[in-house]
């Protein structure tokens, strides 16, 4: 968490969106899955720069370091294999936080300021504010945030925001030997992707596409897929959205619930003003009305 960056949006904030004084260009990481050789240099660079502890690798019979992301492993080259009939597709995709323009984690987070989106589009966890509830993992359409057992906080890729804010590229990009990773403004990265798509299509990958799903407002990480019509082959959801349950709870139930609670209090108060208390109005039994020694209602 680099506190010196301008914040565009903050979790559990009643403030409206986008209160920026100065507009900054949105940055982007370009991932070309077609030129990734699965060397894992980016995984090592990520561990090293972010000072993450060694996580035990797990061999599952593929070219993948471990089955899934981990609280101390934010960047994982996912491997999958597809029989295309006459040939075999070996697909390597760099799995990490997608830094959505409309982040589900940020929407789901109940702790003010625990997840922020900086002016340049990077989505980051602020461990100081994080309460470790895990809601962000439920809100994420890509299942990225992970609970850290030791710190009891959530953690995920920060797009090396501490490097980016001083003008450096993320550690993974710096380490990539094949040039399949690039970093720059989103505009520039989409241009680069378009150039690459032309090449891929000329080479026979007619369905090649850029993965920049509109359902989450686009992602700060843009991914070039040779089989763009089948993002699920790469382990990517076809049309990701913030989960319905999270949107329903945050956008509909919350305002309705506040109306219900304050309405109930106001309703009871109004009822008292109109009807007052219900008290006995009959003469008390046993002739106490004559003696006057017995009170029928409590003070």
């Amino acid at each position, binding site marked *: 968490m680099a506190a010196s960056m301008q914040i565009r949006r903050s979790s559990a904030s009643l403030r409206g969106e986008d209160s920026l004084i100065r507009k900054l260009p949105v940055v982007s990481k370009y991932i070309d899955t077609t030129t990734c050789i699965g060397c894992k240099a980016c995984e090592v660079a990520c561990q090293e720069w972010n000072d993450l502890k060694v996580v035990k690798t797990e061999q599952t019979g593929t070219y993948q370091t471990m089955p899934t992301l981990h609280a101390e492993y934010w960047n994982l080259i996912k491997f999958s294999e597809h029989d295309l009939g006459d040939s075999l597709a070996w697909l390597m995709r760099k799995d990490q936080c997608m830094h959505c323009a409309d982040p589900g984690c940020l929407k789901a987070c109940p702790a003010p300021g625990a997840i922020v989106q900086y002016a340049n589009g990077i989505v980051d966890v602020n461990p100081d504010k994080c*309460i470790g*509830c895990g809601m962000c993992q439920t809100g994420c359409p890509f299942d990225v945030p992970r609970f850290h057992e030791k710190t009891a906080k959530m953690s995920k890729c920060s797009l090396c925001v501490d490097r980016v804010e001083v003008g450096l590229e993320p550690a993974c990009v710096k380490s990539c030997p094949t040039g399949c990773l690039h970093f720059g403004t989103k505009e520039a990265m989409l241009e680069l992707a378009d150039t690459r798509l032309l090449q891929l299509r000329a080479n026979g990958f007619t369905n090649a596409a850029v993965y920049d799903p509109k359902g989450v407002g686009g992602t700060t990480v843009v991914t070039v897929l040779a089989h763009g019509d089948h993002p699920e082959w790469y382990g990517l959801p076809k049309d990701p959205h913030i989960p*319905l349950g*999270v949107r329903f*709870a945050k956008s509909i139930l919350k305002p*309705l619930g506040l109306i219900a609670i304050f309405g*109930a209090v106001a309703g009871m108060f109004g009822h008292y003003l109109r009807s007052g*208390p219900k008290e*006995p109005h009959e003469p008390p039994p046993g002739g106490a009305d004559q003696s006057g020694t017995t009170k029928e*209602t409590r003070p």
Partner: protein
Amino acid sequence: MSEIAPHAVSAGDPAVIAARTQEDVAVGNEIVRHRLSSRVMHWTVALAFMLTLITGMPIWTPIFSWMAFLVGGLHVCRWLHPWSGAAFFVGMLWMLIHWLASMKLAEVDKKWLSPTAIIKYLNYPETDQQTGKYNGGQKLFFYVVVIDAVLLFATGFVLWWPSFFPQAVREPSIPLHDIAFLLFVVSIIGHVYLGTAAFPGTFGSMMRGTVTRAWARLHHPKWYRDVTGDKRS
């Protein structure tokens, strides 16, 4: 049933104090409505509920962030809310066992099974002379809060330990926990209002255990007749 004449003793009389550990007995002008164990149970559940409420509301929306400061911040809430919620759930099970037998719906309570029943009730109609110790609304409230507590605990358990549940279980748990919470809070707002400001003497029944004969005749006529033997309706 007491042999003491209605006005021979007052609220502070030793006979009344002694009777407060019993239930459904008339001592002088006082009738013991809730024995000591009922009151301890009620306030245990209420305390656990209040603690769960003030630690849950700031997690629900930052409008109630200030509640978090009462327990030391949102981080404490994340830890305390599930535990006090579990205590509240156990308390509700205690309540279920303690009061279930008293909550069987009688014929006179059936008219409460209408959505407008509570509106009619708030217009202060004459109490049905067959109304027993608990009216239909109180019985329905009992079932609603017990069932709601089960829903709160089931969804809350998922939110407590998200790592143990798949996305398909975690996702619906968030809105379901909210719906169950809202149903509970709105019910409790009504419960607190009716139990204090709206019906004077009711709060005392849960504090000191006793109500006056007049209160009993007004709100629970059949219970009054059963306890006192007074046949007037």
